């Protein structure tokens, strides 16, 4: 338990720091790298909470797959030369954001959150293991959303291709 607490403080502070980096690093490469760092720290937090499966997925999907996308795109798009931040929005949105955070923190800390109403119990999860529990739920009760999620990925793939591809046909027509 102590380990978990230590883990929380370490991972969370690092996550916040890297998140700040994501937002405030001028160089987009650094921002992406910070994002990786944040994601890894978040996955660390998942592990501290005992959500191994999601922690692993987080690293797999995000840290590996998605960030690679970003790096690829950044390498295609040349270095960004303009000003990184828009000062006037910064002046407004940073304090506004801070206030929203206060509201959210207020909600999180003072909300009377419910406990244990579902099918699973703490003991049961510990008994069968987090991965098994999640997977069972995902492929039984939440099968339908799971299928739809696959559809979303399919659509996203098609979309990325349609939007990202060059319009050869039109180019040819234009040449004519």
């Amino acid at each position: 338990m102590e380990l978990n607490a230590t883990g929380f403080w370490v991972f969370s502070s690092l996550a916040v720091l890297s998140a700040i980096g994501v937002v405030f690093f001028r160089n987009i490469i650094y921002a992406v790298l910070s994002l990786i760092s944040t994601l890894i720290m978040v996955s660390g937090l998942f592990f501290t909470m005992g959500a191994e499966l999601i922690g692993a997925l987080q690293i797999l999907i995000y840290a590996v797959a998605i960030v690679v996308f970003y790096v690829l795109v950044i390498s295609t798009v040349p270095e960004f030369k303009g000003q990184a931040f828009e000062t006037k929005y910064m002046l407004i949105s940073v304090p506004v954001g801070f206030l929203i955070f206060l509201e959210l923190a207020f909600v999180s800390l003072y909300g009377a959150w419910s406990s244990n109403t579902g099918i699973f119990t703490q003991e049961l999860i510990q008994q069968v293991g987090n991965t098994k529990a999640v997977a069972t739920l995902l492929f039984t009760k939440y099968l339908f959303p799971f299928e739809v999620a696959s559809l979303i990925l399919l659509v996203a793939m098609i979309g990325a291709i349609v939007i990202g591809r060059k319009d050869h046909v039109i180019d040819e027509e234009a040449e004519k």
Partner: protein
Amino acid sequence: MEYLWIIPFSPLVAFIIIGLFGYKFLREPLSGIIAVVGVAISAVASIIGFLQVASTGGYYNLKLFTWMPIGDYEIAVSILWDPLSALMTCVVTVISTFIFIFATGYMKNEPSYPRFFAYLSLFVFMMLMLTLSDNLMQLFFGWEGVGLASYLLIGFYHHKSSAADAAFESFITNRVGDWLFLTGAILTLATFGTLDYLDIFNKLPEAEYWVITAIALLLFGGAVGKSAQLGLHIWLPNAMEGPTPVSALIHAATMVAAGVYMVARLMPIFASSDIALDVVLFVGTASAFIAATMGLVQNDIKRIIAYSTMSQLGYMFAAEGLGLFKEGMFHLTSHAVFKALLFLAAGSVLIGIHHILNIQRMGQLRKYMPITALTFLIGALALAGIPPFAGFFSKDPIIEGAYEISKAVWFFLWAGAGLTAFYIFRLYFLAFEDGDRLDPHVKSHVHESPPSMTVPLIVLATGAVFLGFFKEFFSNFLRPSLDPAYMPFLSEETKRLVEEGLSRAHHVHLADDAIHFLIHSLTSPVGILALLTAIGGIFAAWVIYQLRKIDAREIARTFKPIYLLFYNRWYFDFVYYATFVYGYYKFSRILWFIGDKVIIDGIVDGSAKGSMVAGDGLRLFHSGKIGAYITQMAIGILIFLGIFLLLV
């Protein structure tokens, strides 16, 4: 006596026939003939009726059809035939007949000949509706109707600005009076629940004094407008823009007399209120005098006669105010005759000299137009009140009666009589005698008028000479209508009330018989004074304008302020123009600009513009930049979430 309905409707039929077919089929002579026939039929019918009433007495009330029901009361189109209306109707129809005949000659070769006769017929129809009415609403119908007809007739030469303006002015000024009249009628209806004279009279004792006073004053307000009494008189001289027969018609027998007739008709109402009688007296006296002063210095032949009309109407109102209703009505009758005569003679002159109106540019017309000159002279003498002409018998009783009742009134009436004699003879000498100032070009064409014009002149002149001797007949004849003791349709209570109101006239003891009256007034100091004044006026006019012993211009220079006051008609026109015409118009323009355009439309269009500005302002938030969008959304989230967290 059902045939009486012929009286008003015969001119109406003439009007409709001429109105519909005048231009297409009837044209020049036929339209005039139809009009004359129309009015002549009425004249004959009304004379028959008159004689019948004269022989049998009493009254006759005929309801033709219901016009409009108001609650339980039904306003009907009807005829009330009693001596008063019979007399008035006769005067109207007979004088009109002569004027119509005269007009057929006067309007020769006028392109709008049918239109003129259509309007004349309409006018007579409306006037007869007025005189024959047995209720205030029909009276008002005729009242407004003659206003309309006079508007059309005065503006007959409407392409002339002055004529059009005069018509407009006359209608509007009349409308002011009508407004008061209508208010009075409404008050009557609200008070008595009826508009029928006879019912009103019998309900008079039930009403409060001030209500009756208010009714009387409001109705009199209408009379002031219609009879061109002081305050609302400005239209009358300007109304001379119409063709001369019109002036004769309006001024002699019909329209302007309607006010006098109305007051006499409603005698019980007026008699029930001292204040009302006093006001009538005051207004009449003031008009009589002031109009006479205005007439002194005018140069327009028709305007002088017009002022004399206003002045004479003042005498009639003064008579009524004094309680001498019969005398007032008799003066109305004789005035109708000699005023028609004067106007027609003036018209004859104008035809002769091609419409030159300025008397300073006439002269010695007697040589060229003897009949006209003679008849005019008779008319002038009648007007001046020289015995034995009609004017003397009708006007002198008023002046002498006034002496018995109020010295102040008598003074102004007496002075007015002197002025009257002076200005009418000023006109006579300048136009018919005196030096030869006529344009030579005109002079070569001057000629006496055709018989269609001279015959009516002669007939009317005869009337002006002899009418006065029927004084006693008229007095007796009118008694069932104007003497409360003899009025058949009054209840006892009303009789008492009315007699009480008329008590002011009780110590006036004038002889009804013409001869006795003549003798009496030639022996009493007041009568002698009045006669001498009239003769003095004539003499002064003779000295100044015929003998030229005194230079008129010199007098004008000496009394310049007074001269200017008279010449500018006591500045009535000026003040009215500045306030009610120009002032009203300008004020309206300004109010339109400020009230409607700036304030109201400012708010209306301003809200539209405000929306546009709001739109433009809100547009700026949609700058197209994602950063701005998210920032604004963040503010939205902050506030929105904040509101609900605070509400928990």
